[in-house]
């Protein structure tokens, strides 16, 4: 006995000796866990603050208050009020003249060019359409707030390093001087950038907007939903309620699992080879994009719908069959309506993923530069994530903030879709 007790006390000693080290390693292990969570959290914080920091300024745009004299001598010298003549009048000169009113000393060719470049080159088009809409304006003086050129806007937002040599930056010393002068006169103000939400793409940052891409994405998601939801739900119903246990069913299951994990770019290759080259569908069209995304979303919807069907208790099925309903009647009249909210929730989450997807769209030509806002799913169009990609590649400094703004718009819609899904789930989920 004494032998064993001395033995056990020596064991206790060994254990006690090791305890400190073991507790230390326990603490370290726990620390690793906390560190990894903090790492992910820190990334998210840096990520969002970087995007918001770069993007928030795109929601405002520097504008200049000028008064433009609509000189009849320039617009309509012969007083014909002929629309063709008025359309081709030299509106650039009108804009230039009114800018020159601020700085009468401007004379050299270089200075004139620099002065003209203060405001967006879309200004003259805007005046043209104003005049064409209301010809009685001719001869009057128009007080307008016009967009500054993007480079000037970037300077105002502090994104241009003016300590650099003049040749190294996109804005000249004269422009810096003039802009500062106009600013101290209180003629320049930052206004809400409504163009961002009402225009299509453009080569000029100050005239570019995401509306075209938004509508393109909307058409695509619509087609994705119309195609993928019924098919996915039908496939799920078959697999969950009707499929016999055989080789064919197993094969379908293997295919679905693989489809869910195929890289998205491969779907783009499929779209290019099948929809565009084989069926001759138009390039860059939301129709093709929607079909490709539908194929991608199909397995996601099947998996979500099967989970929803599984959550309907068997007592419902048993009761319906018990009172004499056929198998199809049971499924469609009783099980399906109860599973529908769950199916919708899963589908919306799948569609949100499709909204953010861009790799397959690059393959089917949705990277084209499209200015017009699409009116049908067959028109050439951009998509929101692809617009982000295109703007991220654009060299102008003004597109950096617009890219971030487009990302914020994209994230906003993802947030809306996911919250809708969560709301649906909470509202209709039945706890059996």
């Amino acid at each position, binding site marked *: 006995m004494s032998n064993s007790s001395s033995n056990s006390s020596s064991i206790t000693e060994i254990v006690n000796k090791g305890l400190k080290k073991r507790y230390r390693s*326990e603490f370290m292990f726990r620390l690793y866990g906390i560190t990894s969570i903090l790492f992910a959290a820190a990334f998210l914080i840096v990520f969002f603050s970087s995007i918001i920091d770069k993007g928030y300024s795109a929601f405002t745009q520097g504008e200049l208050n000028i008064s433009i004299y609509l000189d009849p001598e320039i617009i309509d010298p012969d007083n014909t009020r002929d629309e063709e003549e008025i359309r081709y009048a030299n509106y650039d000169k009108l804009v230039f003249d009114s800018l020159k009113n601020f700085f009468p000393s401007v004379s050299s060719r270089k200075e004139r060019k620099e002065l003209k470049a203060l405001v967006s080159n879309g200004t003259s088009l805007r005046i043209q359409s104003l005049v064409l809409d209301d010809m009685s304006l001719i001869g009057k003086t128009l007080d307008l707030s016009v967009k500054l050129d993007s480079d000037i806007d970037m300077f105002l937002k502090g994104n241009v390093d003016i300590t650099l040599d003049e040749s190294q930056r996109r804005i000249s010393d004269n422009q810096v001087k003039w802009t500062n002068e106009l600013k101290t006169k209180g003629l320049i103000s930052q206004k809400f950038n409504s163009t961002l939400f009402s225009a299509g793409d453009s080569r000029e940052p100050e005239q570019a907007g995401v509306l075209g891409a938004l509508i393109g994405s909307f058409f695509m998601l619509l087609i994705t939903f119309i195609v993928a939801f019924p098919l996915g739900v039908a496939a799920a119903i*078959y697999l969950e309620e009707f499929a016999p246990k055989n080789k064919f069913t197993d094969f*379908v299951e293997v295919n679905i699992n693989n489809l869910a994990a*195929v890289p998205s770019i491969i779907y783009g*290759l499929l779209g290019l*080879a099948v929809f565009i*080259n084989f069926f001759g569908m138009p390039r860059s069209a939301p129709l093709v994009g929607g079909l490709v995304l539908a194929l991608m979303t199909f397995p996601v919807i099947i998996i979500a719908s099967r989970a929803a069907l599984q959550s309907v208790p068997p007592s419902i099925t048993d009761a319906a069959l018990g009172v004499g309903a056929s198998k199809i009647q049971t499924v469609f009249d009783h099980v399906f309506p109860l599973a529908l909210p769950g199916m919708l929730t899963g589908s919306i989450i799948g569609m949100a993923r499709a909204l953010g997807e861009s*790799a397959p769209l690059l393959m089917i030509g949705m990277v084209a530069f499209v200015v017009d806002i699409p009116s049908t799913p067959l028109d050439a169009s951009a998509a929101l994530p692809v617009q982000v990609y295109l703007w*991220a590649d654009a060299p102008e400094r003004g597109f950096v903030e617009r890219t971030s703004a487009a990302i914020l718009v994209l994230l906003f819609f993802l947030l809306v879709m996911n919250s809708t899904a969560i709301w649906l789930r909470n509202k209709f989920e039945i706890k059996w």
Partner: protein
Amino acid sequence: MSFSFFLLVLIILGLGSYYFGKSKALALKQNDVVHSLPKYYGYYALVWFATPALIIVSLWLIFSEGIVTNQVISSLPDNIKTLPTNELTLILNDIKNKAAGNLVAGESFIGFELAAETYNSYSKIAENIIIYSSIVLGLISFIFAYISISGKLRARNRIESIVSKILLVSASIAIFATAGILLSVLFEAIRFFQIISFDDFIFGLTWSPQMAIRDDQVGSSGLFGAIPLFLGTGLISLISLTVAVPVGLMTAIYLSEYAPSRVRAVTKPMLEVLSGIPTVVYGFFAAITLAPFIRDFGETLGMNIASESALGVGLVMGIMIIPLVSSLSDDVISAVPQAMREGSYGLGATKSETIKRVIIPAALPGIVGGILLAASRAIGETMIVVMAAGLSARLSINPLDAVTTVTVQIVTLLVGDQEFDSPKTLAAFALGLTLFVVTLILNFYALRIVRKYREQYE
């Protein structure tokens, strides 16, 4: 008749056939025994109306373009008809543009306008034939169905057998989609391997897909050795896994074994946000924020880091994969039976010892499966690398160099103008095939391992 109006007419007629079928059944019910509920007779009539109409419309959508084009070609002057196929295609495109009322650069031959008009008139004729024949055929078959409706007709059984067939077809689409992907990539890839030998592609050390148009052109060797791409893909995936696996695994372990419910309530949505961010946004972050930061940081240490370094891309991709690794590991760790934990505690092990010596070994197959899935995700990831990785194929395993990947090359080869018979375009499909096969194998094994592992403890 415009297409949308035609669809509207079809829908109205369809609703009408449902209504008439149902009301005939209701009338029969007054003084007879009817087999099914009246609505099934409505569906029955509807199916009979819609099937021929829809078949004709879908045939039209598939074939009308080809038929009309052939008609136009046969009406073209002989000297045009005998042009090589690709020139003829260009002319046909011009004709179609002209027919659609678009501006065309120039009229390439006499009779061009006429051809455009022919095209329009043939399309018009084809359209009219389809519209009226589909409506007439649909109505005829509806009338047959209407006449055949009687109390003895087992409408419900007929409808139900149709519905179950539709369900079966929907489920089979998964097979068609896989086959479609495989075939579309395979066909083009085979054409590629007829030009470039398979060995040169798989074992070649130089990737320079620019084809020489003239013999004396510099830098246009048309070499398709894919090893640099595989190496680059492997390097970036490896970096991303080195980030994602430890962080994801430790997150999962902490969440399932240690975390109080408050921490879980914050962390789970955080991971969901991380996995919900579109990859194009990650790519933008990698290219605009992280890559310059790493380059500048390297400069202060006196190192020369490329601004498109594999390191930056891999880091961001790793962060993107964290949620995948952690949710898969979370699943397998919580599947380890509680009894195993309690046994370990009973022997006096601490929590971390239990995790390290009991839970992780028990969950290892599942974790490995999850890592394989994550690897397949990293290999196939496109947008991050397209935006932040390099374009030139360099044979390098230095994480500070700019390397390119398979997906980047697919995108650069296929975006923009392309002709479908040049090896340059076809190479993209060969790369696509490689990518598809590799990810397929990884996914297949990963899913099998995970499933086997689950069965073990169920």
